[in-house]
Structure formats: structure tokens, C-alpha cells
């Protein structure tokens, strides 16, 4: 029999990859749904198992085809990748568990089996990007995930969905191509594609100018995939016109995995010495994030479509993660990594709430949601709790990461950044409150609301699972913050921020 434990890293990626074509061969609706749900659940279990093994035995290496690295492709699970894979697979499973009624309502029945195949491929791509230790393999998985998500987005109900998908396809391909050009230049300089091998061979002190070009191309390429402020234009349309389930899954995971790839690039390959001391990456990231947070938050305030509102809010939230990376102390990096996790829960949860409203009201326009708290009290309450998390109110997950970032900003002597963060949270209050006000305090019910009833229990339960997780991880921080701190410490050199002495991040809230 096979030794399952030693094979876990590859099974994490290979099982969903294997299940996707089976979905296409099987066809039908229920069988493929059950298969994909089982696969997502199994994948989550594997990710948890891997995370536990990493905690016990340290970093796991797996050689594909038994080819020794740097010649073969190596899979690496360390605290950071384990953490990201855990929440990506968790959200994939929960969103699919929640999504059956929504999928039935929004996606043509003849396309269901293809939908599940794409969903699994999308998850494969995301997990592969996290687990692989090979730079070209990152590109391959980035493309698997992107192509699957273009297809998923184009399944939306309106005719604008394919257009939004095409827009994303064009920008996403440009981003991926930039990333590939960067990989090519690095390969030309070092003759290897294994990340740790490149890091060892790259002469960042006296190396050729090519290094700067490679770094620039890869950074900009990932900026597109992360939807960093000036390069975010694909995101609002894609999130707005995609089916609700797709939006919930993609919004919760895809941009975070790109942030993960960016962290790997900056701290794992080029090393912080090069990125922050020789190159002005810190100033660039902080500047773009601050402008992005403000512009996107203000844009969110003026949206009538709630999906689009949340999409702009996503652009703003990516800004917080990049602020954490840009200030580059152990604590802010911890905050950035924790915010990846917390925001995945919050935004995943909120988009699931929107999915419930869309199912019952048939629209994601705010004007059609007037007074929905009367007929859909549980769904509305979930919005309120998730919204508090998005603002960053104490006792929610959003507070934990923002608090860490805020105190980190003071310690890094960036009081301006701290002030800007506080002000931007007020903007979040405005756009979250607008929806709450419409739901709870509208005098007149909209016609759609009068005919509506509460969302089905099978959607509410998984949705509350995520929403309650927002509260749980706002109170119980050792797991999320502890893992993120461990990851941040492993990424930065030991004497990087000797000025920052107080590392007791776990007790912050």
C-alpha cells in the first residue's frame, strides 16, 4: 500500500486535478456536485494534516517523480504556504457546501458539470501556486487558476459576464506574461528554476541590471493579479457579473494567493535587503496602498450594486495587506499575513450573504434590498456581523489584523500610515452602514422583498460557519496570529528589525 503521509503534498494538488476531468466524463448535476464536495472536503483535510505535520516536523519537501531538486520540481510546505493552503481549501469546501441552491438558480443546468470541473481546476491552481517550490511551476498553476476563473466568471447570468471575463482575460494574461518574462530573465541569470536555488545563486549586491528588470516585470505582473490600485480595473466587473458562488470563492482566495506569491518573490527569492534597501519597494507599496485604500473605499461608497461595492472594498483591503508587506517589519508582515486570512473569511462570508440575497431577491442592487431584514432576518444579521469585521470593530477578525498593523506602523515610525488607516476605516463604516440602513431602516419595502422569504437552511448554515469564524478568530488569536508570526519570522532575516522588541503579537487584542 502507498505511504499516504509521505504523499500528502502531491495529493493535495493531484486529487482535485484528477477529479476535474472525472466531473466532465460523468456529466449530470448531483453526482458531480457530490464528487466535487467530497474532493474539496478531502483537500481541506489534507491541508490541515500538512499544517499539523509542518508544526511537528518542520518544513516538508516532496520531489515529484523522485527527481532531485533543483533538476526536478519540488513541493515545499512551510508555515506560510501551509497556512494559506489551509484557508483556501477551507473556503473552497464551505462555499461549495453553501452554493448548491445558488448554483442551480444562476447557472444553466446543462453547464453544471463543466462548472464543477472549472471550480476544482481553479482550486488546484490556487493550491499549486502555494505549494510549489519551482518558479515556473508557479506560472503554470497561476495560468490553470486564471483560465478556470475566466471560464467561471463568464458563466454569469447577464450578457456582461463574458465581457467582464474577457476584460479580465486580457489584463490577467498581460500580468501573467510579465511574470513569465521575469521568470525567463531569472532563469537566464541563474540557470535554475527552483526558488531556493535561485535565491542562493542570485547576486543581488553586484548583479547585472537584468536583476532590476526581472524584479520590475514580476512585481508589476503580480500587481495585476493582486488588483493593486492602479491595475485593479478588471476586478469590479469580474466580481460583479460572475455567479454569486464564483464571486464568493474567487474574491476570498484568488487575490490572496497572488499576495502570497508576491511575498514569496520579495522575501524568498530577491530577499528583503534587495527589495527594500536597494529598491524603493517599501515606499512604492505604501504609497500605492494608501492611495488605493482611499480611492477604492470612496468608490465603494457610491456603488448601488452591492457586489460591486464589495469588489471595490476588496481593492482597498488588498491595500492593507500590501501596507503590511511594505513596512517590512516582522510585526507588520505578520499583520499582512493575518489579514490575508481574516479578509478571506470576511469577504468570503459577505459575498455568501450577497449570494443569499441574490437568490431570494433576484438582484444585487441595493435599491431592491430595501427592508429585507423583515423577511430575511438571518441573512441580514450575517451582513451586519460580517460588515463589522470588514470595518475592524473589536471582537472581530478584522480588528486583529488592523490592530497589529496599526501598532506595527507606530513601531516602524510611520504615524502617517497609522493615521491614514484610521481614517480609511471610517470610510468602511460608511459603505457597510449604507447597506445595513437599507436592510433594517427602510420605510418602504421594495417589491422584490415583499415576495421574498428567508434563504434555505442549507445556505445559512455554511454561511454562518464563515461569519462565526470571523468572530471566533477575532477573539481567539493564537492560531491565526501565531502561525502568521511564525511565517513572518521565517521570511525575514534574524537581525532584520532588532529595533522592534515587542513580538508578543498573540496577546494584542
Amino acid at each position, binding site marked *: 500500500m502507498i*505511504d499516504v503521509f509521505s504523499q500528502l503534498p502531491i495529493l493535495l494538488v493531484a486529487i482535485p486535478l484528477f477529479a476535474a476531468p472525472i466531473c*466532465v466524463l460523468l456529466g449530470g448535476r448531483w453526482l458531480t456536485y457530490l464528487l466535487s464536495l467530497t474532493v474539496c472536503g478531502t483537500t481541506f483535510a489534507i491541508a490541515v494534516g500538512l499544517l499539523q505535520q509542518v508544526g511537528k516536523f518542520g518544513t516538508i519537501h516532496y520531489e*515529484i*517523480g523522485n527527481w532531485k531538486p533543483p533538476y526536478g520540481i519540488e513541493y515545499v510546505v512551510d508555515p506560510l504556504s501551509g497556512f494559506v493552503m489551509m484557508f483556501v481549501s477551507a473556503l473552497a469546501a464551505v462555499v461549495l457546501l453553501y452554493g448548491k441552491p445558488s448554483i442551480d438558480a444562476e447557472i444553466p443546468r446543462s453547464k453544471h458539470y463543466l462548472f464543477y470541473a472549472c471550480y476544482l481546476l481553479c482550486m488546484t491552481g490556487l493550491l499549486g501556486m502555494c505549494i510549489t517550490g519551482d518558479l515556473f511551476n508557479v506560472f503554470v498553476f497561476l495560468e490553470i487558476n486564471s483560465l478556470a476563473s475566466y471560464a467561471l466568471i463568464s458563466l454569469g447570468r447577464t450578457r456582461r459576464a463574458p465581457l467582464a471575463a474577457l476584460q479580465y482575460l486580457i489584463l490577467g494574461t498581460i500580468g501573467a506574461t510579465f511574470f513569465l518574462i521575469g521568470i525567463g530573465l531569472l532563469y537566464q541569470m541563474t540557470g535554475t528554476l527552483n526558488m531556493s536555488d535561485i535565491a542562493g545563486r542570485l547576486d543581488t549586491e553586484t548583479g547585472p541590471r537584468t536583476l532590476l528588470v526581472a524584479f520590475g516585470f514580476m512585481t508589476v505582473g503580480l500587481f495585476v493579479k493582486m488588483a493593486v490600485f492602479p491595475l485593479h480595473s478588471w476586478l469590479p466587473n469580474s466580481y460583479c457579473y460572475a455567479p454569486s458562488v464564483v464571486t464568493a470563492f474567487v474574491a476570498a482566495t484568488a487575490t490572496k494567493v497572488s499576495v502570497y506569491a508576491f511575498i514569496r518573490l520579495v522575501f524568498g527569492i530577491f530577499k528583503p535587503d534587495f527589495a527594500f534597501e536597494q529598491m524603493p519597494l517599501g515606499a512604492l507599496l505604501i504609497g500605492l496602498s494608501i492611495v488605493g485604500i482611499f480611492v477604492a473605499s470612496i468608490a465603494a461608497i457610491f456603488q448601488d450594486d452591492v457586489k460591486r461595492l464589495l469588489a471595490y472594498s476588496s481593492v482597498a483591503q488588498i491595500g492593507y495587506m500590501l501596507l503590511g508587506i511594505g513596512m517590512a517589519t516582522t510585526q507588520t508582515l505578520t499583520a499582512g499575513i493575518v489579514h490575508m486570512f481574516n479578509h478571506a473569511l470576511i469577504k468570503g462570508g459577505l459575498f455568501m450573504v450577497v449570494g443569499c440575497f441574490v437568490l431570494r431577491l433576484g438582484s444585487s442592487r441595493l435599491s431592491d434590498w430595501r427592508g429585507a431584514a423583515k423577511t430575511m432576518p438571518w441573512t441580514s444579521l450575517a451582513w451586519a456581523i460580517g460588515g463589522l469585521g470588514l470595518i475592524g470593530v473589536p471582537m472581530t477578525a478584522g480588528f486583529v489584523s488592523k490592530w497589529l498593523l496599526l501598532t506595527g506602523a507606530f513601531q516602524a515610525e510611520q504615524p502617517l500610515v497609522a493615521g491614514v488607516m484610521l481614517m480609511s476605516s471610517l470610510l468602511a463604516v460608511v459603505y457597510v452602514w449604507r447597506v445595513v440602513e437599507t436592510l433594517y431602516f427602510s420605510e418602504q419595502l421594495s417589491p422584490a422583498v415583499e415576495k421574498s422569504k428567508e434563504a434555505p437552511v442549507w445556505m445559512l448554515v455554511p454561511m454562518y460557519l464563515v461569519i462565526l469564524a470571523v468572530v471566533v478568530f477575532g477573539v481567539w488569536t493564537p492560531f491565526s496570529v501565531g502561525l502568521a508570526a511564525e511565517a513572518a519570522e521565517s521570511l525575514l532575516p534574524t537581525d532584520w528589525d532588532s529595533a522592534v522588541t515587542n513580538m508578543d503579537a498573540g496577546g494584542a487584542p
Partner: protein
Amino acid sequence: MISFPIIRIVTKLLIPYILLFGLYVQFHGDFGPGGGFQAGVIIASAIVLYSMVFGLPAAHKVAPPWVIEKLVAAGLLLYAGTGFASMFLPRPNQDVAVNGNFLEYAALRHNFLPGILPTDQHLGIFLVELGVGITVTAVMIIIFYAFAGRRRVA
């Protein structure tokens, strides 16, 4: 209606050779230039040529769209299945029995009809390339069908 007899007859003569060349590129890819990607495109080009000369309905009879769609998945399944198979087979030349890693072709060693059937690394590459070939053929055909079958929406 003009029937273009020369084009029809030349096409009928050419298609078997295109297919044969495709198979050559596919299976000789183990020893020389070639492989699944190139072979897949060549084989698909035979179907594309057929449907351009004899019309889309005739091509749908030869290669029904639903079969092609399943073939897209089958090729990937063959590739990934080869990977899984090597995880269930023992790694050769080991003192303690250890199973291979994912896609470890060496674990596919066998003694069945030696010299005729490929074995070991060769068998692994053979199967994987066959998977690639099937998927690429099917994808090229399905893309062509998607564009050719498009009707103007009123």
C-alpha cells in the same frame, strides 16, 4: 451548387496521410522531434480540413462534439492517472519496498513482452504524451467547432 470535385478528392486522398503523419509525430516523439502537442494539432487539422470541405454536419458525424468533449477530459485523466499509477507501484532497485512518487516513471517497470512494449521511463513518457495528444486533438477540434458552429444572433 458547385461541388468542387478536385478539392473533395484531394482532401479524401490527403486525410489518411495527415492522420498517419500525426501518429508518427505522436509515437516517434519518444525518439526524435515530436510529441503530444504537435501530433494533437496535426490530427485535429485533419478533422478541421474535413469539416471545411464537407461541411460541419458531416464532421459532427465523424467526430461528434460530445465525444470530443469527453476526450478532452480523458487525455488529462490518462496523464494524471499515470502519475497516480506510479504511486501504487514499487520503486525499482530498493532494499526496502517503497512506492514511487507521483509521476515517477521508473516505478512503471514491468517484464511483459520485453522489447516490444515500452517499459520504465519510456512507458511513462509514452502514456503521458498520449494523454497530451488526446487532449490537444480534442481541444483544437472543440475550439474549431465552437467558432464554426456560431450563428449570428438576430
